[in-house]
């Protein structure tokens, strides 16, 4: 068992699960989307990105790309939340919440791709 692989798989999967946890629920209902979960998803996603640095293989490059996409989407979601909760006069309206959650939904898609890549990598490793 390779500890590096364990840590890598753990973070990739955790990023996807946290993202899923935040995303699920009625898209416009602020009560169903915990902001702490979004925070955790961002932090774990950033860590997963850094773990993917410096891998020269083709699959490593795609891994890094999906992670960067997820980061971008999640940071955009965080910015949208900050804007509606702190800057906009109207506060956290259902439509604002919907845009935050849908942005995180995009990140979820990228995270799913990441997980699929992880599985593909593992399976092809056993076949070899």
């Amino acid at each position, binding site marked *: 068992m390779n500890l590096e692989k364990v840590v890598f798989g753990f973070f990739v999967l955790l990023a996807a699960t946290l993202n899923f946890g935040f995303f699920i629920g009625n898209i416009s209902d602020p009560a169903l989307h915990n902001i702490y979960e979004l925070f955790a998803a961002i932090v774990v996603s*950033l860590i997963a990105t*850094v773990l993917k640095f*410096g891998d*020269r293989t083709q699959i490593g490059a795609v891994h890094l790309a999906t992670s960067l996409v997820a980061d971008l989407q999640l940071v955009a979601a965080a910015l949208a939340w*900050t804007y509606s*909760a702190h800057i906009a006069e109207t506060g956290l309206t259902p439509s604002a919440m919907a845009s935050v959650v849908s942005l995180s939904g995009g990140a979820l898609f990228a995270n799913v791709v990441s997980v699929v890549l992880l599985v593909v990598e593992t399976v092809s490793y056993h076949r070899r």
Partner: protein
Amino acid sequence: MGNPLLSFWMRLLGQDEDPGPRGPSRRLRRRIPMASAVEAEATIFLVLRRMRAPLIVLITIFAVSVLGLTLVPGQDATGAPYRMSFFDAFYFMSYTASTIGFGELPNTFTPAQRLWVTATIYLTVIGWAYAVGTLLALLQDRAFRRALALQHFTRKVKRLREPFLLIVGHGRTGELLCSAFDALGRRVVVIDIAEERIDALELGSYRGDVPGLVADGRDPGHLGVAGLRNLRCEAVVALTNDDEANLAVAMTAALLRPDLPVVARTVSPAIEERMHAFGSPTVVNPFNRFGDHLRIAMRSPASYQLMTWLESGPGAELPARGRPPGTGRWIVCGYGRFGREVTADLRAEGLDVTVVEPRAATPESHDGVSTIEGSGVDPAVLERAGVADAVGFVAGTDNDTTNLSMVSDARRLNRSLFVAARQNRASSAPLFAAMEIDSLLVPAEVVAHEVFAQLSTPLLWRFLQGVPQQGDAWAAELIRRVTADCGRRLPTVWKIRLNQSEAPTLLGWLRSGEARLGDVLRDPERREDRLAVTVLMVLRSGADGEECVMGPEDDFVLAPDDELLLLGATAARRGLDLTMLVDAAREYVQTGRRVPAGWLWRKLSRAGRT
């Protein structure tokens, strides 16, 4: 390609793919490896890998601090319970961690919050210090810096849009050659194995940008990065001190780019032969050349003077005309590679040679040359060798101090001696100048001049090859003409071809068969004057091969497609360009009639005439 936009972009960006008239095939180019570029990329990946741990520590510390700050209970200005939002917490941590410290925002902190903030301040400072420290250490890393330099160099070479020379070895010779080509406005790319010699590139005041890389020329990958695969590479010049390395460079160039001219320096005849086994490189052996020059100087001092002057590059002073004695006995001190070459050349000229050599002589190695055993610095040995009744003396050891003291001893014994000496180090130049040596060999300069003559203008090289056959009087007359026109400093040497693109206005005149050289070279400002230009050679390629006219007189009749090698000041060059390109100037030069040059005046004068 139906899309016009696509074809536009192809034309704009696809130039590199165009193989050109004499470019190598694509297959050949692909064979040249780019190993070192991959190495550079690997180093950058390594840096990213090493940054993983500090970055993760930093992210974790930040996350824990921000999360804690949102959870610790606080109170607002009215004393009501309040918790910081993620936005406020992130803002606070950002300015605290980066030691900017705006104070406690948005409300004054409670003691519980202050306790947490105290802990996070220490944590974040450690996290930042770790990350920044690691990054700085990596930037200082030798391998990383070399990788960066390599990438920078590769990019520069790739972006060169002019023809360039690839010079391997930036020692004394390389430096001389670089500045000579730079003065001509030619581009140069340099690689050298020693870091300080590449650093010297930045200190050298070159006009053009000279890309330089610390790399081993024996590695084909390094040569590939330095432009061997670039179609704009004109020639490869191997000038390192190491004969093996020069051989490797010549070999690499001959195998990977057989179309490129290669010039390599060597002092060993054995290596020279091995170089000739690969393609047809031009091999320059300074010791061999010195002997050849000595023989030319004996037969025709003026030819030798002219050749050395033209080889020295723009701005060089006319060298003094010395005449080595062509009869009598010569003494050669030091029978190494240099001594052997000189002795062989002198004997080929029919001269009597005595060799002085400290090492116990093996008879077969000296080929029957009379040898005195002993050191040339010992006056007794010199006396025994018969310096008193000799005519020439060669101090040819590889030690400058020894050479200088031998020359001084020999001069004391015989005042009228012709002295030739070998200068090994550039720093000894003032000492040799003070000794007033009659014929000085500086190997670095001999090689630099020779390579310059071969690569600057191919016509110049042909001209120099032809000079010795023309005789002494011819060369003396040519030197007189040039110095009368342009003074004792060498003006620029350039070539023109009398064809449609270079001399469009002259073609009609040339076809008439009345274009005498002296008329074409009239000053377009005042046709009574002649431009201060000397024509060294006219090369005419006809159906039956090439015809070469050395130093043509003013009544020589030019023809279309002639190639001319000219020598003259920049002002004269501009004058000639005017005649070749502006029809009005040509008309004035040819007939003496002033024709209006502008469109309006021409229309008006034509209207007035009809």
